[in-house]
C-alpha cells in the first residue's frame, strides 16, 4: 500500500529492503497509534474535574519489566531480520565478469569500461561522462572511487547507495530486473554543484547491450569519451595506492 511512496524497485535485492521498510512501517505505525490513542484517552479521562483527586502511585514493577522486555524483543527480532539482507547487499560480492569503474569528481560520474582486453588502466579503456550502459539480469560490479571529495552513488530504483571516498576503492554490485533509463544522483553534499550532479544508467536487454557495446566499446569505435581521462584523476584518488 505504500508503493506510491517508494519509487519502483527494479533491482534483485530491492525487495529485501522494501520488505523490511514495510515491516518497520507497520510495527512503528501500530506502536504510534497505540501510544497516541492511550495518551489521548488518558488526557480526556483524567482531565481536571472538580472533586477528583489523582491516584497516588509510584509505579508498578511488573509493568516496568513488561515494557522493557517487549520492545527489546521486537528490536532484537528486527535486528536479526535486518542482518541477512545487509550481509547479502554489502558483505558479499556475487561472481561476475561485468566490472565497471566509476570515479566521481566535482560534479560528474566518470564511468570507465575496461575495453576489449578486459583490463583497466590500458589504452583501450573507454570512459563516459554521466552515462552508464549495462545489460539487464546481469550482476554488475562497480568499483567506486573519487578523485576529490566524498560523493555518494545513489540509484533510487535500485535501492542502492554507497559513498565514494577519495583514497579508497569500494566494490559494490547490483542486478537490474527491468530495462529502462534510471537516474543516478549524488547523495552526499559535494560542493556548490552538488545539486544537479547526476548521471543516467541505461539498462538494456542483452541484444541491445551487445549492439551498444559493439558500437561504443571496441577499439577505434565512434564513442565520445569523456574529455578528462585517467591523467587527471591522480590528485586525490591515487593517494592510497
Amino acid at each position, binding site marked *: 500500500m505504500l508503493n506510491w*511512496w517508494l*519509487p519502483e524497485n527494479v533491482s534483485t535485492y530491492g525487495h*529485501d*529492503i522494501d520488505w*523490511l521498510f514495510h515491516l*518497520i512501517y507497520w*510495527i*512503528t505505525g501500530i506502536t504510534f497509534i497505540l*501510544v*497516541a490513542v492511550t495518551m489521548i484517552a*488518558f488526557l480526556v479521562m*483524567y482531565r*481536571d*474535574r472538580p472533586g477528583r*483527586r*489523582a*491516584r*497516588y*502511585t*509510584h*509505579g*508498578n514493577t511488573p*509493568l*516496568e519489566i513488561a*515494557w*522493557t522486555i517487549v*520492545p*527489546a524483543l521486537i*528490536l532484537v527480532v*528486527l535486528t536479526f*531480520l*535486518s*542482518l541477512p*539482507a*545487509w550481509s547479502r*547487499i*554489502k*558483505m558479499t560480492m556475487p561472481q561476475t565478469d561485468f566490472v565497471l569503474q566509476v570515479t566521481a569528481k566535482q560534479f560528474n560520474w566518470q564511468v570507465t569500461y575496461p575495453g576489449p582486453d578486459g583490463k583497466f588502466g590500458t589504452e583501450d579503456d573507454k570512459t563516459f561522462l554521466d552515462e552508464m550502459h549495462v545489460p539487464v539480469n546481469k550482476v554488475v560490479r562497480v568499483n567506486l572511487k573519487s578523485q*576529490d*571529495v*566524498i560523493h555518494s552513488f545513489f540509484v*533510487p530504483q535500485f*535501492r542502492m*547507495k*554507497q*559513498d565514494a*571516498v577519495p*583514497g*579508497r576503492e569500494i566494490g559494490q554490485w547490483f542486478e537490474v530486473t527491468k530495462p529502462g533509463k534510471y537516474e543516478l*544522483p549524488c*547523495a*552526499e*553534499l559535494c*560542493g*556548490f554543484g*552538488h*545539486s*544537479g550532479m547526476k548521471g543516467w544508467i541505461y539498462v538494456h536487454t542483452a541484444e541491445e547491450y551487445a549492439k551498444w557495446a559493439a558500437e561504443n566499446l571496441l577499439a577505434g569505435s565512434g564513442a565520445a569519451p569523456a574529455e578528462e581521462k585517467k591523467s587527471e584523476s591522480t590528485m*586525490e584518488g591515487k*593517494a592510497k595506492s
Partner: protein
Amino acid sequence: MSAPSATAHGHAHVAHTGHHELGFIRTYVFSTDHKMIARQFLFLGLFMMVIGGLLAMVVRWQLAWPETPVPGLSGILKETQGILEPSTYNMAFTMHATIMIFFVIMPILAGAFGNFCIPLMIGARDMAFPFLNMLSFWVTGSAGLIMLSGFFVEGGHAAAGWTSYVPLSAVPQYTGVNWGQNIWCISLFIMGIGSMMGAINYITTIINMRAPGMRLFRMPLVVWSLFITAILLLLALPVLTSGVAMLLFDRTLGTSWFRPSGGGEPLLWQHLFWYFGHPEVYILILPAMGIASEILPVFARKPIFGYHAMAFSLIGIAFLSWIVYGHHMFVSGMNPALGMAFTVTTMIIAVPSAIKTFNWLGTLWGGRIIFTVPMLNALAFVSMFVIGGLSGIFMASTPVDIYIQDTYFIVAHIHYVVFGGSIFGAFAGIYYWFPKMFGRMTNTALGYVHFWPTFVFFNLTFFPMHIIGVGGQMRRIYNPLQYEFLQHQQHWNVFITISAIGLGLAQIPFVVNFFWSLFAGKKAPLNPWNSNTLEWTAPSPPPHLNWGPTLPTVYRGPYEYSSPEAKEDFLPQTQPPVRAAAARH
C-alpha cells in the same frame, strides 16, 4: 555534611553580601550569579534562534520555488536580485543547523536550564565555581559572535554542511569558502571550551553541594538529566574540539589529517565527528526529557511513574550513546561488519527511550490533568518524541538505511527529535520557570495562541518530509526540479514551505508574550503551580544566594503529589514529615 554547618555557612554568605551592593556591570553583565548567567544563556539562545529560523525560511523558499527571488533578500543579495545561488544556499542550511544546534538548543537547554535549575533544585546557593560559570557564558557568547562574523567575510560562511565532511571542508578550493570555514572551526573550538567549563561546574555542584537530605535519588529528574548531560558534554565535546582543531590545521597549516593527497584519511573525520555527534544528540534531548518529567507530575498532580526506571534509563542512554555512533556511517565505506555491530547497539538504545515514554504515559494514568501552557508543551514533547524515536528505527535497520540515508527522511527524523523534542521541551521549561526566573507570570491566552499553531504547523512542516524522503529526495540539494524522479512530488515541497512560514509566524505570540510578561506580567507568587521542588521555596525571583539565612532541608522525593499524608494535593520536599514529628513525642 550536617545541617547546622550548612546553616552557619549560609549565614556567613548572607552577612557577607549584605555589606555591599553589586554594581550594574557585576549584576547584569559580568555576573557570577547562576540565575543571571541562566538568563544570559536564555537571551543568547533566543536571539540566535531568530537568525537560525530566518535561515531556515530562506532554505525552504528555495526548495519550494527554486531560483526565484527570496522576499526581503534583494537588499542583501544585490547581484542576483535576491535569488539564491547554490553556494549561498549551501551556506544557509549549513549555518541554520550549526546555529540551531550549538547556539540555540545547547545554550537554552544545557546553559539556561542547567544554570537555573541545578543550584535551585538541589538547594545550593550557587554553582561550585561561580567565576568559571561566568567565564563559561562569556566564552560561549564570544564563540557565537565569532560564528556570526563569518557571514561578513569574503567567500561567505562555511558551506560544507553542519557535519563539515572532509575533504570538502578541508580544502578551500572545493567549496570556494576560505575564511568562513576557518571561522566555523575557531568558533566551535571556543564553544567547546565554554561548554567544558559549564560541564565541570554542573557535575561538581551536583556531587558536592546538595542540601541536607537531598540524596541522589531524591533529586528531581531534570537535575538527573542535566547531570547526565554534563557528563556527556565533558566527554564528547573535547572530541569535536580536537577534530575542528585538526581540520583547521589541515586548512591553514598544511597538515594532512584528513586529506588523502597527503596520506590522510577522510573517514577519520567522520569517526571523530560522530563519536561526538551521537552523544550530542542526547545532549540536545536529555534536558528536554528531564523538563517533561518535571512538568508532567506537577500538572497531572501525581507522582512520576517509575522514578528509578526514569533515572536508570537516563544513565542507560548515556552509556549506550557512545557505542551507536557508527549508524551515521553505514554507507560511508566503513567496514560493513562494523555496521552490523552498530545495528545491534542502535536497536538496543531504543529500549530506554521506550521505557521513558511508557512511564510518561503511566504518569498521566489516573492523574488530575490540568492543561496549562507548560503542560501542553510538555505533552507535545512526549508525542513528538515518540514519532522521532519510532522513525529512528528505520535507520537502525541497515538495509533500510541504505535507501533512506541522506534523504529527507533523515531531515524529518532529526527535526522531530530536536524541534518536536528539544524545542517543545525548551518552550515547556520557559513557560514553567518563567515566574521563578523573572518574577512575573506569562500571559496564558498568548501562550495558547503560541502553542496550538506551533504544534499544528510543526507537524504540517515536518511530517511530509518523511514522504518526500521515502520518495527519494536527497537532503542538501539546491533544486529538486533538476531530477526527473522527484518532479512528481514537488507540490509537497511547496506545501512544506507554506507550513514552515506558518511555523515561523506562530513564534510571534511567543516573542510578544515573553517581552510583555518580562515588564508587565502579573507578579508571580512564591509557588504558582503548587510544586514540590526546592526552587519554589525561594522568592520569585530568588535573590543572590537564593535563600535567606537557612538552606532548605529535604525530607522526601520531589514528586509527592496527591499523597495521603497531606491535605493538599502536594507535599513539598522541605515539609517535615508528620509521622516522624509525632513519633518523637
